[in-house]
């Protein structure tokens, strides 16, 4: 091939691939709004707050961003709204060792952020993030579950609490909570955490009394 031929191939080829890319981009842009819910004023305001505090400087969203803090794509499914609000406004009030600084987010800004996260969580991301495939294997599948353990699982307590290394870190670890609390405290706390821990970020447990008692029994076995 002559130099001129190589040059022409480079130029024409590049234009050709760029044209295809433009056509695909055009098609994509047209499809995006159908793959996501409508963008309300609150959602847009939340996006602006997201930019204002440079949240992407620590977090990822849709897996894009920085890798210093958890991904925010499904955060509104993972955590109750009240928890999120309290955490974002003052992380260390919820979790004394939280690695996120208090940024000065106002109550209104927090509400907008929650609307924004709600919108984000409903975007069709081709199934990302995927569900962990080894979770059941590493969990408690191998042995019989007690009644209390079943309630613990079905109420999603492990989203926020860790027992023997498994679970989330939003609330305190429960591996030895049986040493620390008694039955009355536990049941009372489940029904209304605020009565026991001022400004508690734990949501009230909404379940029949029988389940709450089973849960308390289970907690007492954790020693």
């Amino acid at each position, binding site marked *: 091939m002559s130099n001129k031929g*190589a040059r022409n191939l480079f130029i024409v080829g590049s234009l050709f691939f760029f044209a295809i890319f433009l056509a695909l981009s055009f098609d*994509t842009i047209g499809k995006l709004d159908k*793959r*996501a819910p409508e963008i309300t004023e609150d959602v847009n305001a939340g996006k602006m707050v997201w930019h204002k505090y440079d949240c992407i400087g620590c977090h990822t969203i849709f897996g*894009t961003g920085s890798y210093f803090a958890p991904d925010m794509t499904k955060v509104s499914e993972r955590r109750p709204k009240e928890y999120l609000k309290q955490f974002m406004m003052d992380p260390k009030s919820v979790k004394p060792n939280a690695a996120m600084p208090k940024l000065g987010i106002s109550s209104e800004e927090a509400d907008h952020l929650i609307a924004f996260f709600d919108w984000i969580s409903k975007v069709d991301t081709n199934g990302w993030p995927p569900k962990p495939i080894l979770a059941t294997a590493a969990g408690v599948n191998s042995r019989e579950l007690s009644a209390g353990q079943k309630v613990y699982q079905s109420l999603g307590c492990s989203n926020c609490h860790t027992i023997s290394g498994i679970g989330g870190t939003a609330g305190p670890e429960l591996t030895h909570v049986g040493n620390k609390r008694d039955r009355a405290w536990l049941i009372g706390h489940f029904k209304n955490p605020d009565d026991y821990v001022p400004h508690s970020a734990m949501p009230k447990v909404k379940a029949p009394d029988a389940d709450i008692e089973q849960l308390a029994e289970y907690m007492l076995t954790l020693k």
Partner: protein
Amino acid sequence: MTIKHESQKIAQNFYTFAVILFLVQIVVGIIAALQFIWPDFFILNFNTIKTLHINALIVWLLTGLMGATYYVIPEESETELWSVPLARLQFWATVVAITAVVLGYIWAGLNPQANKLVFGTLMLNEGRKYIEAPRWADNLIVISVLLFLFNCFMTVLKTKKWTGIQGVLLGGLTFLALMYIPGMFYTKSMVKDQFWWWWVVHLWVEGAWEIIAGALLAFMLMKVIGAKREVLEKWMYIEVGLVMFTGILGTGHHYYWIGTPAYWLWIGGIFSSLEPIPLLVMVWDAFRTTREARAVTNKAGLYYTVAHAIFNFVGAGLWGVIHTLPQVNRWTHGTQITTAHGHLAFYGAYVLLVMSMIYVTLPAIRGVKEFDPSRAFQAFWWMTISMIFIVLTTTGAGMVQTYMERLMGLDYVTVKASYNLWFWIVRAIFGVGFLIGVLIFVVDYFKLGKEPVRVIKAAPERA
């Protein structure tokens, strides 16, 4: 080694600014690494520190490339630069704008409420990775780049010597300038926001910058080894052609999970997995040419040039391709694997590129016949070994994260704070090793040609 045209000296202003920012980049990089261990370690939060780290990186690479271009264009056109005062003005305008932007980041970091929304844009920090610079700064940057391109094109027009090297170089730079624009407007949809954001980020590093790298590689091989232009330019066209044929549609590897249609899984997967090919051709090109080398005066220049070609392939090509297929990326997306790749790719492809251009052109600018390359070699090994360990630790952390968080479902914070802690500690230590390398380089940069030469050998001059 001497320059043929007085105006090529302007490159030095840009190099000096670049070298200083390089040092700043690494110092803040170490602070960022320490914040993985102690989050409250510094007055500025991680996000601000990391913004400074990556903006310093991008800006010093760009100013380095501008300086290099101001050197190459007169050389290739065989004439003086169209306007030296304009180049000088453009240089100082860039310095002032960048300083203002940095002060803005720090201010917004200390007091986020100061980051006010005025006419729909945030005044200090736009809160978008890499392109945090606010709109007013974007406009200044665009003006500066346009002045730069104008000056270069006017120079070429003086003699109309459209050599392949300068044609491709200026083509790459124009593409670079154009691809800044998709990042300059606001969209209400986060999906569209990220869609356009990747145009800038991906089409820069895997498109425009790689074209520039191809052109400069040919230039350096010609200067350092005296290889034939004909052959070099032909391979250059093939390399940059393949970069574009694979890289443009390769953008799809960022459109798997951000809310874009599923056909990108196919397009992105297929085209991006071909992206290492042109990078491999560049390595081959460098080796083939080097074999012809007989008496090379500029040993440091050659060393860095070849290392650039190799690490471009390893960092961008290999560390890119391992997580580029959707089946893999589904699990590794946005983990420390990405960090590992980002570091080795930028280091190999562009840090070493700018450094090799400095080592190839600076001796001529300073008018030295020969210089002692030992400091250049020391800097290289301190940096490269440290970088390899930074990359290995983050790759390790990324594998643990992928397994424990993504596959087993453990909490992000648990994995980061306990399982990966050792990786963070080791990374920070090698960060200091990297800093030592940079310090040696900075000393070498300022001393090169300004101290008596220790060894003088009679080698025929090539450059």
